């Protein structure tokens, strides 16, 4: 009887709802991952059996491997540049008065909600006007704009929690301004900086729209995948998609764990 009562007290409708939402969020990804191991090229049920043939195919495909290399370069460059720009800007912003700070943050956040398509075509027009050709570098330059707001958000939230009186303590003990930054501020905010860098890398690796309009012949992995979607029945897409997914979600996962100590 008592067990039954406890059973009844469990909020079943809530659990079902949350479960359904999470299932909905992750189901399409699960399907791609599942069919990337399908032994048959058909992407439909019933499932025929497991095989690694599509992975073998993509990892021996020069076009795909080259694209992976470009995507990796883009991700690492975007991550490094945004982390440096974002950390510097975050340090600058934290010292501002709260009104100026609000205004600066408002402008800094605009690229986050600005439609990627319009930004991408704007960038394409701009490059044309400047006579800069489309390339991987042109794409990376745009992806940095897209991830900078996220990085800045993470870093300025961390700096808001940082106790600047620790710097006073270091100065009191004889440290110069730069020494105090290197030994106190930097080590304390470093997890957040690295976390935001990983986030920027995830955003870059998954980025499609800016790359589509500005990469030219330097096709990144999402562009290769896009190119193959329109060709009928290319099951290697599932494997490319899975690789992309594993990389970006792993980066996002580590990033979220590093930056928000509250989570988990």
């Amino acid at each position, binding site marked *: 009887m008592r067990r039954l009562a406890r059973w009844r007290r469990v909020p079943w409708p809530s659990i079902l709802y949350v479960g359904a939402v999470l299932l909905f969020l992750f189901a399409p990804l699960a399907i791609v991952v599942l069919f990337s191991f399908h032994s048959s090229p058909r992407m439909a049920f019933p499932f025929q059996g497991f095989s690694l043939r599509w992975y073998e195919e993509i990892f021996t495909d020069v076009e795909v491997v080259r694209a992976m290399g470009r995507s990796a370069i883009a991700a690492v460059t975007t991550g490094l540049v945004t982390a440096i720009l974002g950390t510097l800007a975050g340090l600058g912003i934290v010292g501002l008065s709260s009104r100026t700070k609000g205004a600066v943050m408002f402008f800094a956040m605009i690229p986050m909600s600005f439609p990627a398509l319009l930004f991408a075509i704007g960038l394409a027009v701009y490059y044309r006007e400047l006579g800069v050709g489309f390339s991987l570098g042109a794409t990376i330059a745009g992806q940095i704009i897209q991830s900078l707001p996220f990085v800045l958000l993470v870093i300025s939230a961390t700096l808001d929690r940082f*106790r600047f009186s620790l710097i006073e*303590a270091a100065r*009191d*003990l*004889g440290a110069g301004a730069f020494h105090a930054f290197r030994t106190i501020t930097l080590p304390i905010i470093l997890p957040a900086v690295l976390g935001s860098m990983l986030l920027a890398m995830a955003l870059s690796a998954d980025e499609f729209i800016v790359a589509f309009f500005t990469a030219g012949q330097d096709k990144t992995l999402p562009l290769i995948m896009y190119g193959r979607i329109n060709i009928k029945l290319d099951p290697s897409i599932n494997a490319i998609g899975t690789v992309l997914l594993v990389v970006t979600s792993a980066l996002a996962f580590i990033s979220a764990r590093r930056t928000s100590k509250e989570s988990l």
Partner: protein
Amino acid sequence: MSATPDSTSPAIELVGIEKAYGQAPAVRHLDLTIAQGEFFSLLGPSGCGKTTTLRMMAGFEFPDAGSIRLDGHDVTEVPAHRRQVNLVFQKYELFPHMTVRRNVGYGLKVRRVPRAEIDDRVDEMLETVGVGAFADRRADQLSGGQQQRVALARALVNRPRALLLDEPLSALDVKLRKRMQLELKSIQERLGTTFVYVTHDQEEALLMSDRIGIMNDGRLLQVGTPREIYGTPADPFVADFVGELNAFEVEVRKVGGRVSGVVDGSPVDVPSSASTGKRWRIAVRPERMEVGPAGRKDALHGRVTELNYLGHTLQYSVETAVGELVVRAGAGDVEREPGSAVSIWWAADAVIDLGEATP
């Protein structure tokens, strides 16, 4: 930059210090000399300028006018990291990502002291303050009391010419605070370092200090030993801020050839500065008042309205002609029930002069 220790100069001298934030003055024309090896407290309510004064000594704030000398050397414009004083912060400000040992060794490492010497000095200091057992813990894993000790060690290990403490015990609970007060005092006596201690807790200041400076509204009102501050406050604010006070007005008259204050028909002692024909404000501390049976000559008369038992003392509230007075007596004394009529009197040296009454 190293100033040679010079025992003939005072540890710290502040001359004509002025400091304002925008239009708001924080410290007004402050002169103060703190001797070598002294335990000096700056006492006052929050916002009185005591912390600003301390931060100017530390080199975090710079005076608008006046000068600061440390061991006889002018350091007015020298920034914090090049001053040979160290500060114990109110919230300790231990570096959370470092161990206790690295926290304490930070200042020595910055000054490029050889590694072996750092280790020795850090270990010794950790023992001195009683946290040797936690040397390899991370600073954010310590209790409040332990953090307090580490903060103290981190400052003292540099052998500062003076140690500045900014309400270092205010975050601790009452019991721990009492214990740390005694420990701080004994550490100071053992090391002989000059301590400048900022607090708003008058009991703390009275207990620990060699001398106390009372501040209010940016001004240094009185400097003296605890006994002087408590017994002969130079100013009504000082009298009121340090300890409890029964303050009232008397009429100054010549009674039987002597200048006396007359209250309720009875003469009481007044300060020698009081002049006849004027109304004078005087004050007497609750524990300096005596309470006895009604009808005594040359005493105030009143009725007990409240009796509180405080453990070691009895505290009476007595309604008199000059208002309600608080009187304390030893717990062994005869208890006088509320409602009973009593006499109240005091010794001549118990009177605190608050000056002529303003009409």
